[in-house]
C-alpha cells in the first residue's frame, strides 16, 4: 500500500496541467470581457493552492499560469481584430504612447500581458505560501 501511494503521481502530468491552463485561460478571457481584470491573480492563487496541496512540482504550475494568462488576455486582445477587423496593433501602439512608453505595438502588448502575468505569478506564490506542503514522498 505504502509503495503504491508513493508511486502515484500527486498532481497529474503535463496533460493535466495543460487542461488546467486552458480552462483557466477560458475563465480569464471570459471574465476580462466583464472587466474583471483581477481574475489572473485569482487563477494563479487557485493553481498555487492546488499545486502545493497536491505536492506538485514547481516546473508545472509556473508554465501553466503563464499559458493561462497569456492566452487568457492575449486572445481577447486580438479577437476583435480577427473577427471584426479592428486595428489591434495600432491600438497597442497608442496605448504604449499614451502610457509614456516607446510607441510600438509590441510595447503595448507586452505591458498589458505583463500586468496579467505579474498578477498570476504573485497569486501562485501566495497560494503556495498559504498551503501546507503535502507529505513528502
Amino acid at each position, binding site marked *: 500500500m505504502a509503495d503504491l501511494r508513493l508511486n502515484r503521481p500527486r498532481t497529474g502530468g503535463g496533460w493535466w496541467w495543460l487542461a488546467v491552463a486552458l480552462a483557466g485561460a477560458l475563465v480569464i478571457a471570459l471574465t476580462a470581457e466583464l472587466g474583471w481584470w483581477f481574475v489572473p491573480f485569482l487563477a494563479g492563487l487557485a493553481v498555487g493552492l492546488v499545486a502545493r496541496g497536491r505536492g506538485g512540482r514547481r516546473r508545472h504550475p509556473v508554465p501553466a499560469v503563464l499559458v493561462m494568462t497569456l492566452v487568457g488576455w492575449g486572445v481577447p486582445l486580438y479577437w476583435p481584430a480577427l473577427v471584426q477587423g479592428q486595428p489591434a496593433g495600432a491600438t497597442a501602439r497608442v*496605448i504604449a504612447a499614451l502610457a*509614456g512608453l516607446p510607441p510600438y505595438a509590441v510595447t503595448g502588448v507586452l505591458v498589458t500581458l505583463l500586468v496579467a502575468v505579474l498578477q498570476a505569478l504573485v497569486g501562485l*506564490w501566495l497560494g503556495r505560501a498559504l498551503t501546507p506542503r503535502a507529505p513528502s514522498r
Partner: protein
Amino acid sequence: MRNVRGRRGLRRAVNAGFALIVSGLLLYVLAAGYGTIPPLGAALDPGRGAWTSAAGGQTASAQTLSLTGLQHPVAVSFSAQGVPSIQAATDHDAYLALGYLQARYRLAEMDSERRLGEGRLAQLAGPSQLSSDEFELRLGLLRTAQREWAATPRSSAAGQALLSFSQGVNDDIAQVRASGHWPAEFSLARVYPSTWTPVDSLVIQGVLTEELDFTTTPLDYALLEKSLGAQRTMAWFPVQPPNRQSPFNPGPYRHPGLTPVAADLASSVAPVGTDAAATASPAPSDPFRSSQPISTATGTAAGDLLAQVGRLPAGVVHTEPDSNAWAANGPLVDGHGAMLAGDPHLPQTLPSIWYQAALSAPGLQVSGVTVPGVPGVLIGHNQHIGWSLTDTQNQATLFYAEQTSKSHPDQYYWRGAWRPMTDVHYTIPVRGAATRQLTVHITVHGPIMTQAGQTMAVDWMGNVPSPDLAALIGINRAANFTQFKTALAGWYAPVQNFVYADDQGHIGEISAGYYPQVSHGDPWLPLTGTGADDIDGVIPYAAEPQIYDPPGHVIATANQRPVDPSYPYYIGTSENFFDNSFRANQIYAVLRGRSGLNPAAFQALQGNVTDNLAQAFVPRLVTALRQSEAQSGGLSSDQQQALNLLANWDDSMTTGSAAASVWWTFWGDYISAAFSPWWTSAHVPVSKDSAGLALSSWPTSLTEDLAAWTAGGGPSGTLSPFALPSGRTRTAAQVMRQAFTTAVAHLASKLGGSPSAWTWGRLHTREFPSLTGATGLGYGPRASSGDAWTVDAAEGGLNSDTGPSWRMVVDFSAGASARGATGGGAGPALAEGVYPGGQSENPTSPWYDDLIGYWWDDRLLPMPAAGSAAGSVRWTLRPPGSSAAMAVGRG
C-alpha cells in the same frame, strides 16, 4: 529536529507574510493606481480597458442611431475624409447632431480643453498641471463663462444652440458609458468626462479667446524699462513700427469719442468695492505711478507672473503673430465677382483645433470649420457670403498695480477709498496628491494674478462676457454685409479681423471687438490701480478698423497693424503684438494690380514661401558685404560661396535652397550682433521670459527696427543699436559683416560641407505634435519650406509647430461658373478647404491624419455643400422610439 521544524515553520510564515504583502500591494496599485500612475488593472483589461478604443479604428459604415432629444430624424453623410454634412429639420436638431458628432470624434479633445479652462487638468495629470489650474482659475475663464451663460436668454438662438449642442454631446457620452468603449485617453487614466453643459462650451470659447487675446507684453515692457531704461525701451520697442507696413484700412479715420464700458464689464466679477463697503481715506503714498521708473516690486511681480505663464501648456498664451485672410473683387477677379481666401495660423496639432462640418436646417445653410466643444461654424461660407478670420492682435490685456496695505488687509485703494476685495474659493483635485484650496482675490480691475513684490491685477477683455455665439449664429445666417456687420456688433473678444466676400461681388473687413482705452498712463506698462489709469471706454464699433469694397479691390489681413499711424486711438505697440507686416506686404504685392485671379491663384498664394524681408534686405546685405570685402578683404571661401548664394537667390524659403539657410541664420545673428551688447550690459532679465525678452526669440520690434534702420534713419547717438555701451560706434555694414561671419560659422559647424549643401530642408522642419503630448502619435518632424514671415508661415522655431491650421478658398465669382465649377448646391460656385490633421482624434482611425498629405502638397478638398450629401457613408439619427439604437464603435 524541533529547531529545524521551527525554522522551516518560521520561513513558511515569513514567506506567506511576504506573499500576502506583495499580493496586497500589487492588487492595490493595479486597482487604485499610485501617484500619477493610473489603475493599470482596469486600464489594460482587454475586455473593458483602453483596448476597446480599437473599435474607433474602423471605417465608418451606414448606421441608424437613436439620440435622446432629437425632434425629427437627421441625415448625416460623410465625405471620404469623414467630413459630415448634417441635414436637419430644425436648428435644434442640427446643433444636437453637431454636438453628437463632435463628441463622437473629439470627446477627449473637448474634455481636455474644458479641463484646461476650468482648472481641472491636475485631476487628470497630477501635480505637474496644478500651476496651470491655479492660473486659469485666477484668470477667470470659468467665472466669465458662468456669467455669459447667466446672461444668455434660454429662448435666444444662442441659448437654444448651446442647450441642443450639449444634449448631443451628452448623448454620445451616454452611449460610450453604456458600451464601455471609451477613447483610450479616458480608459488609461480612469478619469471619465462629466456631463456636458453650456458653460463648458463657453469655457472653450474662453480658452480660444485666451489663446488669441491674452498678452503679457506689458510685463515684458516693465522688465525692459527697468533694465534698458524708459528712453531706450521706447526707442527700440516703439508704439508705431518703423518699417514699411501695409494697413488694410488706410483711413481717413474718425474719432467719435468712446463707448463706455459698464463698470462690471471691466472686471471678471460683478461690481466690487461698492460705496457702501468702501472706507473713505486719504490717498496712501503711491509707490507706483506710470510716470515713475518701474519699481523693484513691480519687476518682481512681473517676473512671477511671467513664470506662471511660462508653466502653462504650450500654445495657451499667444506669442506668434499669424494668420492670413484676403479677399478680392471686381476687375482683379476672373469674371468679376468676389473671392475669399483664409488660413488661420495656430498651433498645428493632432487632433486639430478644427472639426469640419456642413449644417443644413431651415434658414441655416453653412459649411466650414467648427471648434470642438462649440456650436456654430467659425470660418466658412453659406449660400451668400464667405468669411475668414485673422487675429487683430491689439492690446486687450492691461495690468494694474493695486495699492494695498498691511493696515487694510484684503482691501485695495481705489478712487479715494479702501475697498474690500471679492474672494472666490476653489477646490482643485490633484491626481496622486492632496486636494488644493485656492482663493482668488478680485478687485474692480479684475483678478489678482500675483502678490509677489507688488499686488498685480489683470484687466483682460477676454473676461468681458462676450456673446460670441450669438454673433457667430448671426454670421452663419447673414446674407449680405449689412447683416454681417450687424451680427458682429455683439462680438467683444477676442478681437478678430473678419474678412468677407459675397455673391453680389462685395468684399469687406471688420476688426470687431473691444479695444480698451485709457486717458492716463501708458497702457503698454503696468498701470496704477488707484483709479487714475482705469479704462475709460472702448473704441466705438463704427470707428473700429474696417473697410468695404476698397478702390484697390483687395483686402489683406496678416495680423499687421490694420491702420496707419494717424488712426486716432491706441490699439497697441509694435511689440504688443502686431505682425511686422512682411506677409501682408507680400500678399498685397502679389494681388495688387492683378487681373483674372482665380482660386488656383489664391491657392498658390497660400503656399507662397517668398520671404518679403529678404526681398527688400538681401540686395542691401550683398552690397554691404561686397563693399566690405573690397575695402578690407578677408572673406573666406565659405563666406564667398555663401555670399554668391545670396546674390543669386530668388528669396524663396524652399527646402532645397541653401541661400535660405544663410539668410535666416544671418538674420538671427544680425539681431544678436546689434543688440546683445546692450542686453548684456543692461542685464535684461531674459530668464524671466525667454519667449518675450530673449534675442533668440527675435522680438518683433527689433526685427522691424533693423529692417528700417539699416537703410538709414532710426535713433541716433547712444540710442542707435549700432552704437555700443562702451561708446564706440559701428556702422550697419560693420554689424552686418560681423553677423554674416558668425552665421557662416554657425552653418559650417552645424551642417558641415560646402555652403551649397546647407539647404533649408536640413535646417528647418515642421512637426504636428499630439495634443496628448505622447511621442509617436504626432506627425514629423519633416523637412519643410517657409519661415515665420512667409505667407505659408512656419512659426515656432526651426522645428515649426505653428502655421496654417486651415486653408480655405471660396469663389463667388462669375468666372467660376464659366470654368464649370460647381459647389454642389446653393452657395458659392467653388469652396475648398483642408487642415493638417484628420476628423478623428483616435490615432487608430483612418481619419486621424489623412488630411495631412493634402495640406502638405498645398491641395484643397471640396467643402461639402450644406444641404447635400457629402459622400456615400450615411447615418440616420432618430428620436428615441422611432428606431433601435445600435452599439457603435468610435471613430
